[in-house]
């Protein structure tokens, strides 16, 4: 903590701090419920649990998850770096449009992308019908590892593009010029000057990708690839809670190791400007004869990531196979989905507020620990939280069992870190002296907080709100397991229609979900641009 923060802390009203600590403590207590119940569940399995843990099949699940995560992170990086570079530093025609189209892959939930790929690249799918004239009458299909890896690569590469693109725009041009004057060619400049500068952004993006892979349920379930989340779901769905808990704890452990590894890497090196003078806008590289290959590259990425899923969905919309006897009016799905997402986003924002205050202004060891613990959602995949909360409610808090509040608590635990992060950075940008001035003019500590600080942090709070909203809306496994009886959202509707092969029933909810998600993402991206 630097001097400025310590000073801020001393000025921060003691009463406020204690209230913030008490509320934070309550929030953290709720956040800890899943871990506690997982441990209880796993311990109650006893020797059976240990046997289950050590059998070859469980170890294969570990291998599957690690292999998938590694492959996807590498592939997504390999696509994201050139994509980010082309859309930030080259004279590629329509750079901005390509960037937006590429990022659009983010708004399609993984299970929806997977379902469309299973159809498009299936043994008798669209790809096969295109190859028919060349004598290909059946393809091997992409279920299993290839399908899961393809789907996850496509939905996660934007998570690397976003930070890397921003980093490339902010690289220090004078360093590159210095490199050139010392005799480096373009490739040398990229490797020795640009790459090191974007390493923090790259490692953030890669970490997000890896975390996404470990926690994603939709893609591996649709593609029948036996990664952790699918194995846990199969056990949890049948209420074999002790086995599910053993698997879930193992997954949490792996996620934790990944996070620790990354924070080690992050500590090394310094990547910011130290020279005097203003940093100047970036030089735009002329692609020349590379323009066509670059355009083809971007087109292929956008085609696979966005166009194919949309095409398949529209084709299902146009021509149905069999009529689905289940009636699920779109307005009801919309109301439930938007309602539960908005309620969760609000709940998360409120819970995150005191924690963000502590993170930005409290510097004691106790405060730091509270904030660290509140970030538990980062290592708890949705399926794991759902499993633990079912044990919690069905064993000890029956009045919560199969209720909406429990579902919202599940989402809140998962997405609290998003909101704390966004709100904290907004608080950090506010000079505590504003609050001080308001106090000296006679406002109470609370009034100053609510009337001065909160409005100033509004942008960050709103960005966190939108981010949580977007993620809850697309969320599948927690929703499937924790929803009240008869409660349907777009995600559960798509899932049950897929389960019974009512493909035409997937199309409309799928397309509407994509549209609403795109709207939420636009709010988030606009905010990021404003911060730039």
């Amino acid at each position, binding site marked *: 903590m630097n001097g400025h923060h310590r000073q801020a802390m001393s000025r921060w009203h003691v009463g406020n701090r204690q209230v913030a600590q008490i509320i934070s403590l309550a929030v953290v207590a709720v956040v800890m419920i899943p871990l506690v119940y997982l441990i209880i569940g796993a311990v109650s399995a006893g020797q059976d649990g240990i046997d289950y843990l050590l059998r070859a099949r469980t170890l294969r699940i570990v291998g599957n998850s690690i292999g998938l995560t590694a492959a996807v992170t590498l592939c997504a990086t390999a696509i994201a770096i050139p994509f980010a570079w082309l859309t930030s530093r080259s004279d590629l025609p329509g750079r901005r449009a390509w960037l937006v189209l590429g990022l659009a892959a983010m708004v399609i939930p993984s299970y929806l992308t997977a379902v469309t790929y299973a159809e498009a690249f*299936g043994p008798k799918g669209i790809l096969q019908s295109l190859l028919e004239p060349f004598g290909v009458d059946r393809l091997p299909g992409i279920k299993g590892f290839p399908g899961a890896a393809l789907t996850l690569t496509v939905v996660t590469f934007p998570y690397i593009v976003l930070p890397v693109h921003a980093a490339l725009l902010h690289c220090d041009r004078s360093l590159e010029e210095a490199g050139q004057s010392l005799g480096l060619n373009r490739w040398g400049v990229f490797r020795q000057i640009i790459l090191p500068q974007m390493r923090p952004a790259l490692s953030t993006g890669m970490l997000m990708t890896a975390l996404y892979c470990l926690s994603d349920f939709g893609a591996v379930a649709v593609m029948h690839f036996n990664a952790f989340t699918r194995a846990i779901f199969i056990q949890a769905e049948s209420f074999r809670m002790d086995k599910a808990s053993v698997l879930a704890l193992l997954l949490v452990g792996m996620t934790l190791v990944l996070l620790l590894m990354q924070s080690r890497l992050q500590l090394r090196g310094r990547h910011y400007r130290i020279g005097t003078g203003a940093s100047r806008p970036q030089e735009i590289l002329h692609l020349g004869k590379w323009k066509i290959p670059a355009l083809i590259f971007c087109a292929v990425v956008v085609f696979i990531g966005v166009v194919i899923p949309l095409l398949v969905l529209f084709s299902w919309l146009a021509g149905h196979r*069999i009529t689905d*006897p289940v009636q699920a009016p779109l307005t009801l799905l919309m109301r439930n989905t938007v*309602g*539960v997402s908005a309620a969760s986003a609000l709940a998360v924002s409120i819970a995150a507020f005191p924690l963000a205050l502590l993170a930005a202004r409290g510097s004691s060891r106790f405060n730091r620990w509270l904030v660290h613990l509140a970030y538990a959602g980062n290592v708890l995949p949705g399926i794991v939280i759902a499993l633990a909360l079912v044990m919690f409610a069905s064993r000890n808090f029956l009045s919560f069992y199969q209720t*909406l509040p429990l579902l919202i608590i599940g989402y809140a635990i998962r997405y609290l870190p998003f909101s704390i992060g966004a709100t904290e950075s907004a608080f950090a940008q506010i000079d505590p002296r504003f609050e001080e001035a308001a106090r000296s003019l006679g406002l109470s500590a609370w009034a100053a907080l609510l009337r001065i600080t909160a409005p100033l942090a509004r942008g960050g709070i709103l960005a966190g709100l939108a981010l949580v909203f977007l993620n809850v809306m697309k969320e599948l496994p927690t929703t499937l397991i924790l929803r009240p009886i008869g409660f349907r959202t777009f995600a559960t509707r798509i899932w049950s229609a897929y389960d*019974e092969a009512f493909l035409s029933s997937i199309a409309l909810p799928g397309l509407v979900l994509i549209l609403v998600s795109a709207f939420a993402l636009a709010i988030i991206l606009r905010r990021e641009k404003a911060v730039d």
Partner: protein
Amino acid sequence: MPKQRSILFALVFALSCFILPPVMADDVLTVYSGRNESLVGPILAQFTEDTSIETQTLYGGTSAVANQILTEGENSPADVFIAQDGGALGALAAAGMLHKLPDATIARVANPAFVSPDGVWTGLSGRARVFVYNPEALEEQGLELPNSILDLTGEEWSGLVGWAPTNASFVANVTAMRVLLGEEETADWLAGMIANGVNAYPKNTPIVQATIDGEVVGGLVNHYYLFRFLAEDPDISATLHFFPGGDPGALINVAGAAILKSTDQPNEALALVDYLLSDTAQEYFAQSTYEYPLVATVEPPVDLPALADIETPEIDLSDLADLQGALEMIEESGALD
């Protein structure tokens, strides 16, 4: 700034439109259904319309739902359990969780083989396990129809068969094989199928779809799923094959229902079970879902062989209660990996 505020207002508005549904409403009959919503949803809606008894339904796989009820025990919110096969009902009966049904209810079912011996569950509709296949694909691959489910481990079927290993009807079929063939042979068959590259699907409908598309030559399903597709398009290339000679692959099973002992609405629960055995509901099963009705007063679907003409293996449905054993065998075989 005003824009941000209006977005915030929009969010709050969206939230206020969203009225929390009655949490755990006590006057609503809670049904746990191991059968797909597309099969029982319409008749449950009809029930509410005819009797004004509101229902809420949890849908899941039959084995999963049975496990859920076993775990919830006394606390289960479920009043009625609808299952895709007799085995899951038998498992709950064995745990002593089912309410005895009145004789008048049980007596509706013509064949006593299709109700529980101690009267705690009743069959609702009959179904046969079949091999659905695509005749064009069969010819293309130069294959002949299999005489037994056991033939599908043959090399010529490599990669060309579909199954739904988590589906309750399949689990019940495996249970029947364990009873008829013994542990070892059943486990060998499962391993042989997997080694033969069998294609796994989440449920029966996707198997029929894959068969029609030629993704697989055929698959192990219940007989009725095909008819949904035929109703939309009579020209599709898929048809049913009943394994001959009392083969374990030609098991006749029932979908059934039971009332939980822990129910707080025994009258409404019984009203639902009686309704599902009424002529209205039985005709629905025969005509809309193409299953065999179990009451004498309703005619079976016309396009199917009579239930009595199917060469089903000799087995007592109440012997199929070892759900957990079959599930574990399937899991150990690696079919879910």
